[in-house]
C-alpha cells in the first residue's frame, strides 16, 4: 500500500496553471526526487503536499486518509534557513516535541540522539548564528526528523551549500533514511543529486505536470565514480531535455 497518494492534484495562480492535474504515489520508506526546470511546479506540488497551499482540486491521501492543512506528519524542509534564531540548536530541534507536549526527559533524550546523528552534539547550546550553512541545514533536518513525520518533504535543501558540504549532506540523508526508513520526497534541479539519491525520479514540465519517471538501475550506496551512475545521469539528462522540449 502506498504511503501517499495524490489524485488529480492541481493548482493555478491568477488564472495561470502552475500545476495541472497530477497523480503521484509514494511507497513507504522510498526516496523520490522531483526534477524539472524552474517554474515547472515542483515547489508548488511540495507546498500542496505539506498543506501550506490549498489545492484547487484533487485529493491527497496519507495512509489512505485525506489530509489538509499543515501538520507534523508531513514536514517540509525549506531551502532557506528556518531555524528560530533566538533559540539554541537543541531548543530548535526540540521545538516541535515541546509543542507536541512530550515530557522534558524524553524530549532531551530524543534531541540528544538526533544531534548526535547529524553530528551537532557539541553545538547543542549554540545559537544558529554561530553555525555554518551546512550545520544549520543539519539542525533543521534533525528538527524535522524529531517529530518522526510520516513524510519528509525537502525543497532543494542543499542548493545553497558548497559542493563539499552538499555531498556530506547527501550522505547524511541516505544514512538517516537507512536507519529510520523515513519516506522522503525531494525537489531538486540537480541531475547528479537526483541520480545519487533517488529510488525514483519524476520529471516535471511546466504546465504539463509529471511527464516521465525514471528508476536509476543501481543499488545504494552509489559511489560517485560508479560508471552506472554516469550512465544514469546521461539517461536522466536526456529525459529532462525531452521533457522541456515537450
Amino acid at each position, binding site marked *: 500500500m502506498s504511503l501517499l497518494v495524490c489524485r488529480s492534484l492541481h493548482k493555478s495562480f491568477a488564472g495561470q496553471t502552475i500545476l495541472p492535474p497530477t497523480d503521484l504515489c509514494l511507497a513507504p520508506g522510498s526516496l523520490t526526487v522531483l526534477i524539472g526546470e524552474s517554474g515547472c511546479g515542483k515547489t508548488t506540488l511540495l507546498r500542496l503536499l*505539506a498543506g501550506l497551499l490549498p489545492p484547487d482540486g484533487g485529493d491527497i491521501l496519507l495512509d489512505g486518509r485525506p489530509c489538509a492543512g499543515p501538520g507534523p506528519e508531513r514536514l517540509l524542509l525549506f531551502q532557506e534557513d528556518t531555524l528560530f534564531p533566538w533559540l539554541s540548536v537543541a531548543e530548535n530541534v526540540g521545538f516541535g516535541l515541546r509543542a507536541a507536549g512530550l515530557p522534558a526527559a524524553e524530549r532531551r533524550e530524543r534531541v540528544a540522539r538526533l544531534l548526535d546523528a547529524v553530528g551537532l552534539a557539541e553545538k547543542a547550546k549554540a545559537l544558529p548564528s554561530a553555525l555554518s550553512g551546512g550545520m544549520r541545514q543539519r539542525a533543521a533536518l534533525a528538527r524535522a526528523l524529531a517529530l518522526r513525520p510520516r513524510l519528509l518533504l525537502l525543497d532543494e535543501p542543499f542548493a545553497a551549500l558548497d559542493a563539499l558540504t552538499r555531498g556530506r549532506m547527501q550522505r547524511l540523508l541516505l544514512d538517516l533514511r537507512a536507519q529510520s526508513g523515513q519516506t522522503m520526497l525531494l525537489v531538486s534541479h540537480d541531475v547528479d543529486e537526483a541520480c545519487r539519491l533517488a529510488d525514483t525520479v519524476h520529471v516535471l514540465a511546466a504546465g504539463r505536470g509529471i511527464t516521465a519517471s525514471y528508476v536509476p538501475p543501481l543499488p545504494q550506496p552509489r559511489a560517485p565514480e560508479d560508471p552506472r551512475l554516469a550512465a544514469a545521469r546521461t539517461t536522466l539528462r536526456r529525459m529532462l531535455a525531452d521533457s522541456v522540449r515537450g
Partner: protein
Amino acid sequence: MRWTAIHLLPWLLPLLLLGGWAGVCGLALVPDWLLPSPWRVLETLTAYLGMNTTKNAGWSGCFWPDAAASLGRVACGYALAAIPAIPLGLLAGRCAWAERLLAPSLNGIRAVPGISWLPLVILWCGIGFVATVTLIALAAFFPVYFSAAAGAASVPSSLTATGRMLGLSRAAVFRRVVLPWAMPQLAAGLRVALGFSFAYLVLGELTGVPDGLGARIMDARMNGQADLLICGIVCIACLGAACDRVLLLLLRRLPGMVR
C-alpha cells in the same frame, strides 16, 4: 577593539565638550550670567541634589521631588502610548485589513509636529499633569506602533509555515514565532519612544506646571539662573540615559532579543 578604547571612547566627546566649555569660561569669552563655568554649575548641581548644604536656595534639594514628578509623568504617558501601540502595531503587521484600516490615518497624524498639538492639548486638558501625559503619549505612540508593525510584517513566511508544520496553532505561531522575531525591532521602537517621552515631558512641563525638571528649567530661565537651567538639562539627560539603560536591561530578558 582594545579594552581601553571600549571603555574610554564613550567619555571622549563629553570630556572634549567640558574642556571647551571650561576654556571659553576661563578666557571670559562669554559673560558669566550667560554661560556659567562648569565649576559653578557643579556647585549648583550638588545643591540641587541636596548634597551641598552651604548653598541655601529655594530649589536646594529639590531634584528628588522634581525627578519623581517628571518620572511619574513619563511613566504614565509612555504606558498610555505603548499599551495600545504594541498590539495595534503587531496586528497591522500581520493583518492586511488592519494595516489598510490604520495606516492612512496614523501616517497622517504622525506627520503633525508634536508642538502643533500643544495648544489643542492645553485647550482640552488645561495646564498640568494630564496635558503633559497626553503630549508624551502622543509622541511615544508612533515609534512603538510603526516598529511593532514593521517587525511583525518582516517575519519570513517560511518561519511561520515551519511553526505551523511543527504543530503550533495560529495563536501559538503568533506568540512563539512572530513575537520573538519582531522583538528586536519592537525594542528599538520602545527605546526611541522613551527618548521622545523625555523630549515631550520638558515641552509639557514648560507650560507652567508647578513641579518637575522641565518646570525647574522654566523657573531658572525666568530668574536668569543659567547655572540651574544647565543643571536641569544635565539631570534630564542623565535621567533619560538611566531610564534607557533600565529599559534595555528589561527588554534583553524577553524572548527573541538574544540571537
